[in-house]
């Protein structure tokens, strides 16, 4: 499998590999395309999306000695309580890089200059002070911006670019890394599982009797090229579950509907929240350090729409929480053979019990 090098002609028409862990043996895989999504879900199901908009999280600038530094923001400190009247954050966690830009793979980028706590960085109109360094890596630091409020956010959107990818032919403008429902700018990289969802598809789902609900999850960076940091990803991420979503999840489960997460960020938010509240989904804000491993048994989420990933990628391995290893091995082999495209702009996978064999709605066992 290889990464998609650019945008598909239509965002909502890419290949979709459907993986049904409840189907009889040998009948658990089918390849289709994303416009078929509405008929793969059933009335009473609930699709949960991450409405986080993608920030221009990559800032290029210099230190006081004029040495080049790129900062990629990956988490906000102090949280987002804007609706409650609190100002948006001014402190962020960032990974620092040295010279060069996104054309070079992160693992090949030179390290940033050595910067002590209190060092000053300038990114065009934005000035920041380097705060505490993580024990994990000296490149993982807190950044405190001088400005706040309107001035900070104006400068951030003026100077920042979305995080870019070395496997792409062109750089991505800000509008190209947003889902169609992108709302609050909490995401440091695009929650890309939702990229193929168009309003054509979402409204067709609703006409079919499938409900949608949203939450906001502050998706961090997917990779940094620093082995110590990458081994620790994802770092704890903030989320907010609105009351309407908590209600929709409870009602869906009470009526034997399936909860389908769009992307791992939604799985982390829902399962992280469930873990904190004895399996129930409560509305509110939180932070989760939950890692979805093959051994993880979801309590709330029945299925997941995900970008296509190769078998060795961690994103693919977490699908093992939703489907057995033999079926996933067959799925990976199919995707490989069929030339599925991976990464942010690639093809999709849906793991959902009953998607192909509606008589078997709930997976009785996985693993």
């Amino acid at each position: 499998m290889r990464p998609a090098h650019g945008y598909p002609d239509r965002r909502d028409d890419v290949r979709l590999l459907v993986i049904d862990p409840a189907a009889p043996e040998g009948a658990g895989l089918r390849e289709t395309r994303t416009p078929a999504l509405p008929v793969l879900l059933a009335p009473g199901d609930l699709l949960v999306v991450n409405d986080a908009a993608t920030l221009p999280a990559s800032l290029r600038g210099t230190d006081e000695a004029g040495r080049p530094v790129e900062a990629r923001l990956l988490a906000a400190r102090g949280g987002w309580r804007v609706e409650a009247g609190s100002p948006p954050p001014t402190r962020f966690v960032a990974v620092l890089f040295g010279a060069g830009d996104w054309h070079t793979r992160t693992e090949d980028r030179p390290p940033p200059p050595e910067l002590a706590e209190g060092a000053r960085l300038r990114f065009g109109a934005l000035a920041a002070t380097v705060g505490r360094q993580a024990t994990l890596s000296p490149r993982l630091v807190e950044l405190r911006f001088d400005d706040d409020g309107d001035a900070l956010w104006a400068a951030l959107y003026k100077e920042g670019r979305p995080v870019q990818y070395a496997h792409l032919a062109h750089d991505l403008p800000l509008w190209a890394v947003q889902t169609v429902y992108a709302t609050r700018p909490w995401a440091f990289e695009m929650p890309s599982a939702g990229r193929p969802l168009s309003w054509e598809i979402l409204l067709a789902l609703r006409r079919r009797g499938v409900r949608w609900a949203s939450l906001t999850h502050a998706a961090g960076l997917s990779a940094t090229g620093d082995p110590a940091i990458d081994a620790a990803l994802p770092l704890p991420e903030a989320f907010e579950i609105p009351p309407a979503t908590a209600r929709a999840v409870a009602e869906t489960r009470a009526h034997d509907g399936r909860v389908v997460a769009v992307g791992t960020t939604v799985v982390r938010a829902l399962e992280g929240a469930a873990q904190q509240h004895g399996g129930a989904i409560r509305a509110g804000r939180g932070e989760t350090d939950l890692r979805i491993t093959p051994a993880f048994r979801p309590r709330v989420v029945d299925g997941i729409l995900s970008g296509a990933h190769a078998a060795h990628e961690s994103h693919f391995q977490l699908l093992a929480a939703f489907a057995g290893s033999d079926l996933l091995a067959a799925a990976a082999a199919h995707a490989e053979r069929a030339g599925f495209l991976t990464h942010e702009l690639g093809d999709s996978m849906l793991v959902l019990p009953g998607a192909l064999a509606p008589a078997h709605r709930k997976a009785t066992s996985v693993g």
Partner: protein
Amino acid sequence: MDHENAAIGGRFLQGQNALVTGGSQGLGRALGGALAAAGARVVLVARHFDPLAAAVAEIRAGGGQAHAVVADLADKDAAAAIAGQAAALVGPIDLLINNASTLGPVPLRLLLDTDCEDLERALAVNLVGAFRLTKALAGPMVLRGAGTIVNVSSDAATEAYERWGAYAASKAALEQLGRVWAAELAGTGVRLFTVDPGEMDTKMHADAIPDADRAELSDPGRVAERIVELLAGSDTASGARVAIRVGPAQASAAQAVTR
């Protein structure tokens, strides 16, 4: 400027977030004040920082909540940046007012003398800019099942005024786009209105018709209050075109008395 909204029963927009383009002068600035007076947190968008900052300061001085976002709607990257900054500063937007527009070069010219680039610029700001921002903000509204969009048009969209061709074509297209938006948004909880504010005593009007008798023109503050009244009500169907004619200051005073 008078920001009282006694007629509509006070702060019905408390807790709501409104975004107004072209918010640094004229009707947009008046709308910012009227929406803030009705309780909304307001994000004003305009191309130039200083007049925008003055408009924001005016609202804050009156006890309202306001924020500034500098952007040129003709810039393809602007919509995502405006939407992101606005949501960072106040949260999801409940009310979008597409008010910004450009006349093109003044004095206005006959179509025979209008440069193609000037027509393109009018379409880029008045039509495509509004479309992009609507796309960026209507999606989140549909997701949440609620929201209102107001497109500010002009009687130039329906009357054939000589020398107003580029502006008129952009507004006519904006109105038709609005009708289709409203049709497609039916059932989603998101409303769209087109408002024709009539001839107002604004810089834009003075640019277009420098020798107009200002006593004959409407006060944008009064027009803004009428638009806020429209938002407060639920009796106007989505997709409607609402012509607001408050008339000269003397006449509107009389109207207020006889109400």
